[in-house]
């Protein structure tokens, strides 16, 4: 079969002269019609640049240095710009990661789609609108006629990405390039969008280049997989073969770094980080981080080698030791104590909405609405939910970074009021999501670590300097870190600094707000291991706020699932994730793309989006999306139903079954 797209020895550089960075270096692959080819890699490995090179849409200063790109019979590199414009959108189309930014904010959705239709299909007038509506129908946008007349900001994230897809389809492209199409979306929405993409590809026999960092997404969607590292393709193969036997050490370690159900022990981590492109590179680019590297790897760049249908660039291909089975252990429950370190009762955070002439309060956004939870010393409670469910607000309200509207917080036996906030601050600290915005770029690391000790007067002033060195060692950073500024560090190292900062005042509870969601898989594993070690050695309790269920399974003892400001299910991690009761938890768990082939019950797809907390649905907040909703769900909010072992749910349907 003739391939639809053939890329041969593509080299792309950004910048000029001696400063030029080689972001794509000698990448070759092929995609057939109707096939999904996944380009897998961590941030900065050049996968997006590969896609932009294909479209010839490189940012200013970027250019294709050499290589061959053929779409069918067309030589893409040789086309004059005028003809290239017909290829863009017409032959190959692209959808981008962030649908809010990728759509023009001030042009109506319908017009943005129509623009492509007019350009590539030559439609005019009413025919354009009909075609645009048909496209929106095809990508599963409900109420398409009305949506055509809206602006992007009026749509939810999932709908925006569907509009993006509709726009890409307008030119009836033969190849669809999807650059991290679901990374910015919640997991239930991600499942919807991936479904759309899969069915469209099958329907229209398009080739698809799927760019992602998520092994799960690859496993569920791709036919073939290419792994990129530092600008190079290092391994390529059919999905099934790749997932059963990855050949490159890097691919293998990616798998092992991924937290998976049943993990109890430590995750395998890849030491170091992805090399910067301006570093001089000799030999195999992965050699500095590779545990199997031999002298040859450091001098000589490996060539492609074929191993049972896979291609791999590694000197040791086929000679690597067999993958060891991962140990499956269960959590030791020995540390359980009766006394709760943190007890929260009826926590509410309502933000007033003011309207009208005198800014009267006309309503409240119930960001957190009656949350009750407790954490014991040395244990981890995971607070799970999709964006906008109020989980971060819970964390901030606990630390009184946001003033709670109501509720009682008891920490270490002491009720926290406005008067003894400093007690709270010595006992509970926070680690934030974005390691780039959580460290002041204008302060040295030592200053950052000293800040909390100074403010809370921890220890004698003379001892604090030594404490800084001790903290840095504790989180695995070199001693000279203290004198440097944050910009000298990578995301993972910054997150270590942020953890050290929280530990500086020796808290007993650390609230971790998505501490690994901005990190690459290999770095995520390092941080998760660190958190676990610290818990073991210091007896810390964690409130772990996350949307990533895999991480929860790895780290948490207990889970609370939040939906629209309320906890809908709570229990031990194993119980909740392996035997979820609430329809929402069920959907959430099944929506997570898994590496293992799905067994058990079929995938549950949720319809629609999470409603706004400004005006939550009456009765059970979840009923508009719930497949089991009945009349009572529309009327009253369900009470707790215990299902055994401290596991409870708020659901009429479950209560009815019991």
């Amino acid at each position, binding site marked *: 079969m003739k391939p639809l797209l053939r890329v041969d020895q593509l080299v792309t550089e950004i910048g000029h002269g001696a400063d030029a960075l080689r972001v794509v270096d000698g990448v070759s692959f092929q995609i057939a019609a109707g096939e999904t080819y996944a380009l897998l890699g961590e941030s900065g490995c050049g996968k997006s640049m590969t896609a932009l090179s294909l479209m010839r849409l490189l940012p200013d200063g970027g250019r294709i240095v050499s290589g061959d790109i053929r779409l069918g019979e067309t030589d893409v590199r040789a086309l004059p710009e005028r003809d290239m414009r017909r290829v863009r959108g017409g032959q190959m189309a692209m959808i981008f990661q962030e649908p809010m930014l990728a759509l023009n904010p001030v042009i109506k959705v319908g017009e943005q789609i129509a623009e492509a239709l007019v350009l590539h299909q030559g439609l005019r007038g009413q025919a354009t609108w009909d075609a645009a509506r048909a496209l929106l129908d095809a990508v599963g946008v409900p109420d398409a006629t009305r949506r055509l007349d809206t602006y992007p900001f009026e749509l939810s994230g999932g709908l925006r990405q569907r509009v993006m897809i509709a726009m890409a389809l307008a030119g009836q492209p033969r190849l669809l390039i999807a650059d991290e199409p679901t990374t910015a979306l919640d997991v239930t929405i991600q499942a919807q969008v991936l479904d759309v993409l899969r069915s469209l590809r099958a329907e229209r026999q398009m080739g698809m280049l799927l760019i992602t960092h998520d092994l799960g997404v690859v496993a569920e969607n791709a036919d073939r997989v290419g792994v990129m590292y530092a600008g190079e393709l290092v391994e390529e193969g059919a999905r099934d073969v790749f997932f059963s036997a990855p050949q490159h050490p890097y691919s293998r370690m990616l798998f092992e770094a991924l937290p998976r159900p049943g993990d109890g022990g430590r995750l395998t981590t890849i030491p170091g980080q992805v090399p910067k492109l301006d570093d001089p590179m000799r030999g195999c680019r992965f050699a500095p981080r590779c545990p199997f590297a031999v002298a040859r790897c450091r001098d000589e760049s490996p060539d492609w080698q074929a191993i049972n249908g896979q291609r791999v660039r590694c000197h040791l291909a086929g000679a690597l030791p067999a993958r060891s089975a991962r140990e499956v252990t269960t959590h030791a429950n020995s540390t359980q104590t009766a006394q709760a370190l943190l007890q929260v009762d009826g926590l509410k955070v309502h933000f007033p909405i003011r309207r009208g002439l005198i800014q009267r309060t006309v309503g409240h956004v119930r960001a957190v609405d009656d949350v009750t939870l407790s954490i014991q010393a040395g244990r981890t409670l995971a607070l799970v939910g999709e964006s906008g469910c109020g989980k971060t607000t819970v964390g*901030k309200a606990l*630390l009184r*970074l946001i003033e709670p509207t109501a509720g009682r917080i008891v920490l270490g036996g002491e009720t926290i009021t406005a008067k003894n*906030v*400093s007690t709270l*601050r010595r006992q509970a*600290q*926070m680690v*934030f*999501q*974005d390691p780039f*915005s*959580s*460290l*002041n*770029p*204008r*302060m040295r690391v030592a*200053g*950052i670590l000293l*800040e*909390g000790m100074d*403010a*809370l007067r921890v220890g004698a002033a003379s001892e604090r300097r030594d404490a800084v060195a001790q903290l840095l060692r504790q989180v695995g950073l070199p001693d000279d870190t203290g004198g440097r*500024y944050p*910009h000298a560090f990578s995301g993972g190292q910054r997150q270590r600094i*942020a953890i050290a*900062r*929280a530990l500086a*005042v020796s808290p007993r509870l650390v609230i971790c707000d998505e501490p690994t969601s901005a990190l690459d898989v290999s770095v995520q594993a390092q941080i998760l291991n660190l958190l676990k070690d610290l818990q073991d050695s210091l007896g810390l309790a964690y409130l772990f706020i996350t949307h990533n269920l895999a991480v929860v399974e790895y780290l948490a003892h207990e889970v609370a699932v939040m939906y629209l400001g309320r906890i809908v299910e709570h229990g031990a991690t194993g119980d909740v994730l392996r035997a979820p009761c609430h329809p929402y938890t069920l959907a959430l768990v099944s929506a997570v793309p898994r590496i293992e082939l799905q067994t058990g019950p079929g995938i549950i797809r949720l319809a629609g989006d999470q409603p706004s907390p400004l005006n939550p649905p009456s009765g059970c907040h979840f009923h508009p999306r719930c497949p089991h909703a009945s009349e009572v769900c529309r009327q009253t909010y369900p009470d707790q139903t215990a299902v055994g072992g401290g596991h409870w749910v708020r659901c009429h349907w479950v209560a009815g079954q019991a």
Partner: protein
Amino acid sequence: MNMQPVILWTDALIFALLAVVLALVWFIRRQEHLRAPWRVVAQRPMAMGAALVLSVFVVIGLLDSLHYRAQLTDSPADKPQYSVEVLSMFDALVDELRTQQEKTYSAPLAMQLYAKEFVLRDGETVRDYPRLQYGGAHLKHADARLPDIARRSLIGLAQGLAASLLLFCLLAVWQSHRTHASLGTWLTAWAGGRLDWPGRMVVLIVALMLMLGGALAHLAAGYHVFGTDKVGQDVLYISLKSIRTGLVIGTLTTLVTLPLAIGFGIAAGYFRGWVDDIIQYIYTVLNSIPGVLLIAAAVLIVQVYIESNPDIFDTAAARADIRLLALCLIMGVTSWTGLARLLRGESLKLRTLDYVEAARAFGVSNARIISRHIFPNVFHLVLIAIVLDFSGLVLAEAVLSYVGVGVDPSMYSWGNMINGARLELAREPVVWWQLGAAFAFMFTLVLAANLFADGVRDAFDPRLGGRR
């Protein structure tokens, strides 16, 4: 000659400002994140060329800020009396320019007055252009003027060129010694623009300025290079004296603006709520009053105050100086709102960042959060605002002087020069040199400032990708 130093208000402030700048330089040298953008500035040819030109202006301005009163020659030694005229170091350096005063207008490089007068020639009274007292006085015939001008310019240019060549040789030897390279390698690197600083531009600008200075010096020794004004004063001298006024307005006004803008802007953005309401109210009120009118009102008040308290200000210079200071103050008070608004917006954004939340989680006090987290992260905006505002203020001075609410009419300033010359445009032939000189000097200073400001902004403003 004995003298009594005089420290005018603006002198004191200028030298205070100089001290602040030097302290800031010392501070910046120790802060990597502040030093790095400055290195970027130093690598830009345009910015460095502009900085050199600016530095010449600054040196003249500083020399002109060292004031004194000379001792009267006939005063007794035990009880010295001093002249009422306040002079500066700069005046002392260019004494000839200052004292060689003609009767009225004369064109640039002329040897005769602009207007005809009755002169006694060969015992007869005839109406003719009289010879100047100083300008071209060394010439016997009018025919010798052009060759003499050409000769002087050439000598000046040649001397400037020689001086720059000498300097360049010294530079080359020093640099090649410093970098342990051979002279030839360094020279080829310089010529190819491969140094880590814009060597070619710096050398070019220095050479140009030396040659221009040489030519000017030689010409000024025998002529009024830019002619003379209505009362016969050398226009070159007036233009040079105006530099200080321009610099004072451009810098001292910013000095007044900064505390207001930084204090109010950050407070409004950080505290929000009623603090924000009050500050926004203040700046909406100030903003809503047309700036010129507010300045006019304030200047009139100062005028009344000076006139009703003549005993406080003993010299004309002191009176003019206090009005200049008042002008800076009032322009500062009216112009802080723009920067304050920018800082408010930025602080609003910064206060929600995680590192500020982290500090609040430790219970760090507001004052400390502002000084350690907010201020250092808006500092680059302050810096950009300082350099960007400078040129606007210099230009504003001319307009205000025209409206009649600028600096004291007795003060040397480009605005006053333009204002005085504007009315003479109707004359035939046109008296253009005063206007021309004022505009040319102003243009040079403002252009240099703008180019320098561009370099600074590009290096500091992350949005334009200047920051690494």
